[in-house]
């Protein structure tokens, strides 16, 4: 059935929900906070509790769909995804957890972070369709660079969801331009050459890298990898539109008895860091 332009505009898509989250954050301060947590970790039940608590302090959520061979991830996320798999977490189970979060009334935009092989096994189209139905807003697939992503991008477009692309400090101008042409929602900037995980210091060239990308696009730029403290989040928040923190959230939950409270408290401290700017 044909929809009028007016109807189409009123419809919320995953892409528009992601964009609005960045706009809201920008109005309040300037960087949106996007914590990462692994679905199915540390147990299937507590995972949803922790994510629900974290969502209270988050502008967007990046939720990990576990894979046995996460080659872009460091030890913390590797350990969490392996535990999630040992707990019996499946792709379908992850989508059910997303639906459960939505039923609880959590309306924070959700990006599903997962490697390509489980997506292929589930079926690309079925994955996008079921993720949309569950209430996800976009996808982050670390081993699917632009050159291999045409099919997933078309499917995500069909459902109004964002396929988020990465750029790295190693990306030359031509790749930045190509990614900028395809970008929806935001671009995920990898802060350093390396895998995910907490680092003592931020990369010295991060500002230059962000400026190089900024010159080529108006899409929000979110920076992740290696950001683990409120001070680092604040420093990155000065430069970028979004700050992604993963391993440090998992470490915070691991260290406490009351994991939802501890994870939420840690994410709150990151927000306070961003607000101090």
């Amino acid at each position, binding site marked *: 059935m044909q929809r009028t332009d007016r109807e189409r505009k009123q419809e919320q898509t995953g892409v528009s929900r992601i964009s609005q989250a960045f706009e809201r954050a920008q109005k309040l301060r300037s960087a949106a906070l996007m914590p990462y947590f692994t679905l199915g970790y540390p147990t299937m039940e507590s995972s949803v509790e922790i994510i629900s608590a974290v969502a209270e302090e988050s502008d967007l959520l990046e939720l990990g769909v576990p894979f*046995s061979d996460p080659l872009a991830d460091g030890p913390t996320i590797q350990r969490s995804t392996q535990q999630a*798999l040992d707990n019996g977490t499946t792709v379908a189970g992850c989508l059910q957890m997303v639906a459960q979060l939505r039923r609880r009334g959590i309306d924070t935009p959700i990006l599903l972070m997962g490697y390509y092989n489980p997506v292929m096994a589930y079926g690309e189209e079925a994955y996008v369709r079921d993720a949309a139905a569950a209430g996800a807003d976009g996808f982050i697939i670390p081993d699917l660079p632009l050159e291999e992503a045409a099919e997933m991008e078309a499917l995500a477009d069909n459902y109004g969801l964002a396929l988020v692309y990465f750029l790295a400090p190693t990306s030359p101008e031509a790749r930045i331009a190509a990614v900028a042409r395809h970008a929806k929602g935001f671009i995920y900037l990898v802060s350093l050459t390396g895998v995910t995980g907490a680092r003592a210091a931020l990369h010295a060239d991060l500002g230059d890298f962000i400026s190089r990308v900024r010159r080529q696009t108006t899409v929000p730029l979110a920076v992740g990898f290696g950001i683990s403290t409120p001070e680092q989040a604040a420093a990155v928040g000065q430069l970028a539109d979004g700050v992604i923190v993963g391993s440090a959230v998992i470490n915070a939950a691991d260290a406490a008895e009351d994991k939802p409270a501890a994870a939420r408290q840690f994410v709150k401290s990151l927000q306070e860091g961003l607000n101090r700017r």
Partner: protein
Amino acid sequence: MQEKLPTQPDAQGKFGPYGGQFVPETLMPALEELLTAYQEARADAEFMGEFHRLLKDYVGRPSALTHAKRLSEQLGGAQIYLKREDLNHSGAHKINNALGQALLAKRMGKKRIVAETGAGQHGVGSATACALLGLECIVYMGTVDIARQQPNVYRMKLLGAEVRPVSSGSKTLKDAINEAIRDWVTNVDSTHYLLGSVLGPHPYPMMVRDFQSVIGAEAREQMLAACGRLPDSIIACVGGGSNAMGIFHAFRDDHEVDFIGVEAGGEGIESGKHAARFADLNISRLGVLQGTKSFVMQTADGQIMETHSISAGLDYPSVGPEHAWMRDQERAGYTYATDAEALAAFQRLSETEGIIPALESAHAVAEAIKLAPTMRPDQILLVNLSGRGDKDLDTVINQLAL
């Protein structure tokens, strides 16, 4: 009329639907740089001259072609010829590719090499090439493989390489590759990843094949010189598949020559404990692992399965993309040998020919033992004896209760 198979992947690095570049963005520029450097080097007579000089003066190529006369007579069928990659310096075909890539790394100004190893042959090959060319060498190796291939661990250390144990996942080759890629992504400016098989993202499957294609080029000439004709079939074991692709490549337009790849049948296909990607299509499906699209042994949910083989070098859940494509094109056929068959072949070749093969290569010998009696004495089987078995003595001694 049969069509020639194109010898290069397409612009996206694909062999039909297989291959490609499924890696994190950080590595995409490094792959582009590698492809450009490799294409320039391949067209540079000086570079290729240096490569071939080292293959001759250092590796000891050409490797011999040996008529396995007693084994052939015993089997009473086809004549079995062995391409003796086991005679190469450092004990296997792996040195061909290791030297090629180490030379390329040096040309690119990369002073640090990371490599993965399963059986340890590629680790030893890499450590050898790095010692020769003055490069730093770090080899990732699963702790399960470290335990079963101790002699090669000592060799690598003696050659000045650092062996980093990997205790994640199945603690074998697959996990060693994950760690090597994580190292590469972290140190991409200074480091070349010396991948040891026809696996991983483009251009590795093409480049590794090219460096290994010297095996087939020599064998083709040697067969013509020895027998005045080409073999009826060529048999090679297939883990990632570099020795197989290396010997097949020069014969790809000789359509009278059949290609047979032999995977690791482990404890049998029904047991589920194997690494026969093409034999068990219920659990082996099109997937993406470690940068390339190919057949991948996986659960219904897309998690990579643990594999089993008595030979560490064949113990891997995916297979080179060009193999998958040659299979689709029916240019190559694939079968498997079980652990028990490989052990029997190991022992039989040792006793009948005085040649102790690597357990990997023993899988190819096992297939020759099955096939030869079904053929006429004027027919020829060419077996790629990809490596020697010194490294496997502990495993074999335990299994055979010697």
